[in-house]
């Protein structure tokens, strides 16, 4: 039977990486940068966290402490994603190369980096299975809130996640607030809508675009970190993260560039992503593969519907994907 009570927490956990990716991409897109490299960035974020955790576990021996176990992978993840963000920024903002092209190349590169280092670490540990397990550090990432076991269903649905899950929700809420209510948000949106106008108003376009892209990438990178350190319990196996990065980008359109909506939308997509596990199919394993199509099919339907609706406020930032050159004549 369909087990809703175990489905919801799983769906939420699946949704968290998407939420990170979606919030990051939204910030980037609001500044006019369509970053198709997000899937690569999330891989890099994940593997950097793994490398950090691995090095820490190696040096600490059996003596793993909470603070470094969390901070080292976190920092490694942020630095790795930041570097990817800088790469995208230099190429598209400073060198004004087509954003789609750079994004695709970054995804190829990022997935390669993830798998290469992942594979190398697996080899280093000499394990028999093609994956690497960092259970000691991972335990700190997936540590649930207190009372999550003693408060029954409430605890199970709201308190049973690692801290990064709450970070994702908080970042989404803060981002939504900043975009809508603050001066920074107003200026960021102006950069994405009409950079020539923002420029004339004295806003430093390059600075805003760089910051938005890099911060966006760092947030997205956290999605990769969450996935491997919490959701996958510290087990890295190559290509396991899959195509979640692309779904995160699709979610941005689905949520109309609003991170607060993205919180629920990402849980919904997370649910679609694992629905096949919960639909009883008996011994027919093949059908499960067809159920896995669901998130993509829903995305396609959403794309079609958003294309048909043409309210001004719900359109993508007007200069999304276009490079800005002040002296363009």
């Amino acid at each position, binding site marked *: 039977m369909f087990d809703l009570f175990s489905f919801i927490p799983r769906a939420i956990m699946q949704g968290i990486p998407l939420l990170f990716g979606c919030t990051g991409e939204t910030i980037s897109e609001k500044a006019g940068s369509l970053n*198709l490299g997000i899937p690569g960035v999330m891989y890099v974020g994940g593997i950097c966290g793994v490398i950090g955790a691995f090095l820490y576990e190696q040096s600490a021996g059996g003596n793993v402490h909470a603070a470094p176990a969390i901070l080292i992978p976190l920092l490694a993840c942020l630095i790795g994603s930041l570097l990817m963000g800088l*790469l995208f920024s*230099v*190429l598209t903002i*400073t*060198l*004004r*190369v*087509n954003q*789609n*092209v*750079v994004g*695709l*190349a*970054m*995804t*190829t*590169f*990022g*997935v*390669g*980096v*993830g*798998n*290469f*280092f*992942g*594979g*190398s670490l697996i*080899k280093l540990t000499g394990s028999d299975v093609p994956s690497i397990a960092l259970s000691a550090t991972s335990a700190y990432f997936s540590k649930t809130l207190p009372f999550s076991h003693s408060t029954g269903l409430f605890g199970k649905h709201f308190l049973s996640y690692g801290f990064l899950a709450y970070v994702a929700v908080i970042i989404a809420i803060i981002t939504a607030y900043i975009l809508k209510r603050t001066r920074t948000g107003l200026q960021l949106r102006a950069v994405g809508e009409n950079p020539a106008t923002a420029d004339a108003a004295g806003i430093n376009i390059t600075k805003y675009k760089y910051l938005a892209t890099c911060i966006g990438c760092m947030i997205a990178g956290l999605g990769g970190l969450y996935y491997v350190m919490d959701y996958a319990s510290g087990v890295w196996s*190559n290509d396991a993260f899959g*195509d979640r990065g*692309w779904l995160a*980008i*699709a979610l941005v*359109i689905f949520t109309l560039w609003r991170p607060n909506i993205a919180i629920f939308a990402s849980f919904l997509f997370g649910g679609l992503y694992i629905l096949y596990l919960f639909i009883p199919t008996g011994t027919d*394993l*093949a*059908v499960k*593969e*067809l159920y*896995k*199509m669901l998130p*993509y*099919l829903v*995305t*396609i339907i959403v*794309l*079609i519907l*958003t*294309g*048909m609706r043409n309210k001004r406020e719900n359109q993508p930032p007007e200069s999304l994907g276009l490079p800005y*050159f002040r*002296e*363009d004549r």
Partner: protein
Amino acid sequence: MSKASKSSKEPLIHITKRKTMAWQKAWLIRIASIVAALIVCAIVTTSATGLDPFSVFSKILEGAFGSERKIWILGKETAVLLCISVAMAPAFRMKFWNLGGEGQVLIGAWMTAACMIYLGDKVPTPILILISLIGATAIGAVWAGIPAFFKARWNTNETLFTLMMNYVAIQLVAYYIIIWESPKGSGKVGIINQATNAGWLPSIGSYQYLLNILVVAAVTVLMYIYLQYSKHGYEIAVVGESQSTARYVGIKVDRVIIRTLLLSGGICGLCGFLMVAGTDHTITTTLAGGRGFLGVLVAWLAQFNPLAMVLVSLLLCVLSRGAGEISTAFGLNQSFGDILTGIILFFIIGSEFFINYRINFRGSTKAVKDAKNAGKEGGLH
């Protein structure tokens, strides 16, 4: 005005757009960027393997050209990447971002495999080949045609639509792989019709890959002629540059978009057919292996120039074969090639900036002089 009175706040560098650059100079910049990229690749490889940089290159060349067999494999791989790039070219010229090459190739491959499996013992091989060829091309065309239809009709975002179609294709193939599994429990389809060779493309002489290479070469030449000299090609160019101009002269924009994507997807389907019927004789979900995306990049870098497409495809394949050799020799992960490919791409992509823009450093008056001279020579204005 004396220079000294200039404030120090004057921007250090100041970028202006170039009008044109001699093609020799542009190519020089591109080649320089490739050389720079190769140096970075060598440094990366050296630090990963401890090889000295020169042996890195000799290893790469050895991996790509080391034996006759390796050269043939290189040819086969290049043909696949080139075929996908050529497929992307018309869509790209129309400024339609077809990121669905991956899925279009895969679905074509799936159709070919299905024909081979279900019709293998029912129709003779020549007819079977014809059926799979038509089927694969048609379904590839449909796979690209669906997003094109919605783009033409409701301006649906084609980038993400084509992207999602990849995963629909992957899951469909995953479903059939379980059904077609052989031997049971292996999780693989295995070599299809190994005993009968039904539906296999014939080899030319003893060269198993030659036919694929020749077909792709022909497709490349035809595509060049189509884009450059045909009325369709002209319409594609007009639609890509300005849809309203196209409408203004009575070009049916919707029809051109759909037609062009049918062509683009059809060639991808053909590529899937060539891979399954011609060389692999089996199917996996990773058949296209990221080359659908790589093809977009190759098409962009080559700017519809087929010769450049051949060269870029070859360069990337040499690199990836070479990286494969290095990773096998040093026990590295196979993804090493992706990293090197990424580095090369970033450099070539970045070099376009230096072709399109001019950088003026503070105090440089060269630009001023150039422009004034041009003005005196009776330029355009």
